[in-house]
Structures are given as structure tokens and as C-alpha cells.
């Protein structure tokens, strides 16, 4: 007997087999990427040796290398970096997406910006060494957009502070009478990270133990090196006599503005003894 509708049956069968073959072809050609050598990834290296300072930000320069010897282009490939210091996020950066065609090897040069302004209040990394926690990852799509993939790695990198030392040597200060007032001179040391460039102005302010201003001064220091200098304060006669006659705790506030407007402040309490100073 003649069976009607076999054409429709054939169409459904062919469509089903076609979809299955398309699936298998895409799956198998994608799996070829896991064959050693087909997908090459040169992971980016992030450490302080690649740091540079520009416009108030620290930039970490690195390179991501990707080679594609598979059967499908890798599209929308991007590198993302998140960095935090003591739980404070200083970077959340993603490179613009690139395409790595079949048979191509691409190197993506990356400058990861780290915004240190949020650290100014905590002092972490500014005056103290800190562990920077990095999360570095790559993400992309392949197989004509049918497959998305990604990998990320979290690690900690110890980083020296931007300002390893900033000291005012009160113990070696000299207090001299200058007319009706006193002139108080003492050595200071400021050391800044080697990748910092340019000059900065430091402001040193000293308060006595009741919070009254003793004196203040400013000095221009070159960045990226160790600087030894002398700070001179003009002190009123009354304050000079007070300092010359009794030991007390003084508060030394050091304000420093790094290029780009990143202002940092360090405040320490120093015991002042006129007999020893």
C-alpha cells in the first residue's frame, strides 16, 4: 500500500541528522583546542619590577600571549586584572577584546592601572610594605560564539611601600635663638620608591602635647631616591622656652603630595627631651 507523507518524514529525519552532525562537528573541532600545542597561553607576569608611576597612578606593564592553532577563531579575548591591598580594591581593569585568528599568535601589551588614592587614609602600601592580591584572568569565546571560556588565578605579591621612610630626627635637632623667636633645625630623611619621578613638596607640621602648633615648614624633595635634608622651623619665644625647659610628646605630621595629586599624611608621636636634643 502507498504510504503518504514519507517526504515530511524524510525532511524531519534529515533535519535531525543534520543538527546532530553540526553539533558533533562543532564539538569535535572545539575539543581539538585541548590537544597540546593547539592553544598556547603565555600568562602575564605582574610584579613591582614592571611598575611605573604616571598621573597619580601606578601602572604595571605586562604582556599576555595567545597562540591559536585550533579550528576556530578565538574572539572577544580579554585579560582582566583585579588588585586589592588590605581588602581595598585598587584596580579593576579589563583589556579591550581582541580576536586571535586560527594560525595566529597574538601578544597583548597591557598596562594595568592601580589607583592608590583609596589607600591614602589607611597607609597600606604608602608607608608600609603590603601584599597586593591580584586576580588575573582571561576570558573569550570560540566556535563562532557557541562556547565561552575563562580562567582566573589569584595570587599575592609582596610590594615595597611607595615611601619606605620619612623621618624627622628630633633627637638631633638644634634650638637656637633668632632675635625674639627661636629657630629649630633638625635633619630629615625621605626615601621614595625608585619608579617615582619628579619632585614633590613635603610639609612638616609639629604640634605640642596639648595640640598647639609648634611650627611648620615645607621642602621640595626629588622623588625616586633617598633624600637627606634639614628642616627649619620658626618657633615663637613662648613655645621655644616651653620646648627648651621640659620634655614632652610632640606630634609630627608629614604631608606629601605625589604626582597626580595623591596626598598622603603620616602622623607620629615623638618624645622630645630638651636634655637629649
Amino acid at each position, binding site marked *: 500500500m502507498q504510504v503518504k507523507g*514519507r517526504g515530511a518524514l524524510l525532511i524531519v529525519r534529515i533535519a535531525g541528522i543534520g543538527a546532530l552532525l553540526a553539533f558533533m562537528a562543532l564539538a569535535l573541532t572545539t575539543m581539538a583546542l585541548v590537544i597540546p600545542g593547539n592553544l598556547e597561553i603565555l600568562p602575564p607576569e605582574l610584579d613591582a619590577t614592571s611598575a611605573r608611576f604616571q598621573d597619580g597612578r601606578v601602572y604595571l606593564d605586562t604582556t599576555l600571549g595567545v597562540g591559536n592553532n585550533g579550528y576556530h577563531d578565538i574572539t572577544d579575548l580579554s585579560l582582566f586584572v583585579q588588585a586589592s591591598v588590605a581588602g581595598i580594591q585598587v584596580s579593576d581593569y579589563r583589556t579591550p577584546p581582541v580576536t586571535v585568528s586560527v594560525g595566529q599568535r597574538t601578544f597583548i601589551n597591557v598596562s594595568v592601572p592601580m589607583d592608590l588614592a583609596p589607600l591614602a587614609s589607611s597607609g597600606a602600601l604608602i608607608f608600609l610594605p603590603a601584599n597586593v592580591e591580584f586576580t588575573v584572568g582571561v576570558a573569550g569565546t570560540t566556535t563562532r560564539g557557541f562556547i565561552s571560556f575563562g580562567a582566573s588565578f589569584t595570587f599575592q605579591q609582596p610590594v615595597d611601600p611607595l615611601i619606605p621612610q620619612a623621618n624627622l630626627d628630633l633627637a638631633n635637632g638644634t634650638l637656637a635663638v633668632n632675635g625674639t623667636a627661636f629657630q629649630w633645625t633638625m635633619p630629615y630623611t625621605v626615601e621614595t620608591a625608585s619608579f617615582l619621578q619628579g619632585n614633590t613638596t613635603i610639609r612638616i607640621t609639629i604640634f605640642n602635647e596639648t595640640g598647639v602648633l609648634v611650627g611648620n615648614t615645607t621642602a621640595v624633595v626629588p622623588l625616586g631616591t633617598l633624600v637627606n635634608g634639614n628642616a627649619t622651623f620658626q618657633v615663637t619665644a613662648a613655645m621655644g622656652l616651653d620646648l627648651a625647659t621640659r620634655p614632652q610628646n610632640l606630634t609630627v605630621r608629614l604631608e606629601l603630595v605625589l604626582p597626580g595629586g595623591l596626598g598622603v599624611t603620616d602622623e607620629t608621636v615623638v618624645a622630645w627631651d630638651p636634655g637629649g636634643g
Partner: protein
Amino acid sequence: MESRYHPGRAVVSAIANAIPFVILPIFALRTLPNLLGPFLPPEVLSEVLSLESIILPLGIGVTILAALTAFFGKGLAGRAAFGTGRQLAKLAWVYFVFTGGLISLSLLGVSLFLDFHLLLYIFYAAVLLGALYFVVEYFVYRRAYRMAAYPTDHYAGGPT
């Protein structure tokens, strides 16, 4: 006249479906700890091994439904029903074994993710077209089957 029931085809179909949906996956899972055990963290290994609890029931389901599908001749409602059920069971097998097309794991401090759910949609389309095939086949062969089975029944082939 072609037989209405095919026990031989049922056995062959059961074996043909048991191999990809039960035997090979279970063999792979049982072999995995010996091959990759030293390289995989225990939590990842146990997660992979737990797939056995999905593969076995769904795979056996696919096998039984495949046998029942092949047992019934073309044009029988049983073939259409079990055939559609078999395809849906295959879809469920793939969906659950491949976790919907999204795999993420942490390995030696590296987090990895693979999202291939769009690719699985093509497989789902193939499976659903397979289910549609059994439905279309039922309507195409129903009249022929009835005419052959009940030649004196003047209602044969008519709407039921």
C-alpha cells in the same frame, strides 16, 4: 505483512543505546580515578564520580525506552510514545551530565569555566527533531498499519 512487534530489534536497539549512554560513560568514570586521580583534587574527583548517580538511572531509562520503541512497529502508538520518551530521556541525560552546558571548577588555585550551553542547544534541536520524527512517523504509517491489520474494518485509517 510486516510484523507488529519486533523483539529482535528491541534487543539490538537496547544494546546500541546502552553502549553510549550507560556502558562507555560508566567505564570512563570507573577508569578516571586510576588515570587522573593523582592530578585532580579529591573534591573535583568526587563530583565527577557522583555523575554515576545521574548516568545510571537516565542511561538505563534511555535503554529501556529505546528497546520499547524498537519493539513496536511503525504506526503503533506505543512506538510514537516510547520514541518521544526516549528522545526526552536523552535530552535529560545530556542536560544533567553536562550540567546544562556550564562547567566551572577550581584546580590548583586556578578557576576555570566553560560555557557551551549554546552548543548544546544544537544537540537539543537534534534530539527534539528525533522526537518529532516519531510523532510524524506515527501519523504517516498509522493508516497503512490499520489497513494492513484490519482490512475489513471500513473505519481503518479514519480519524480516531
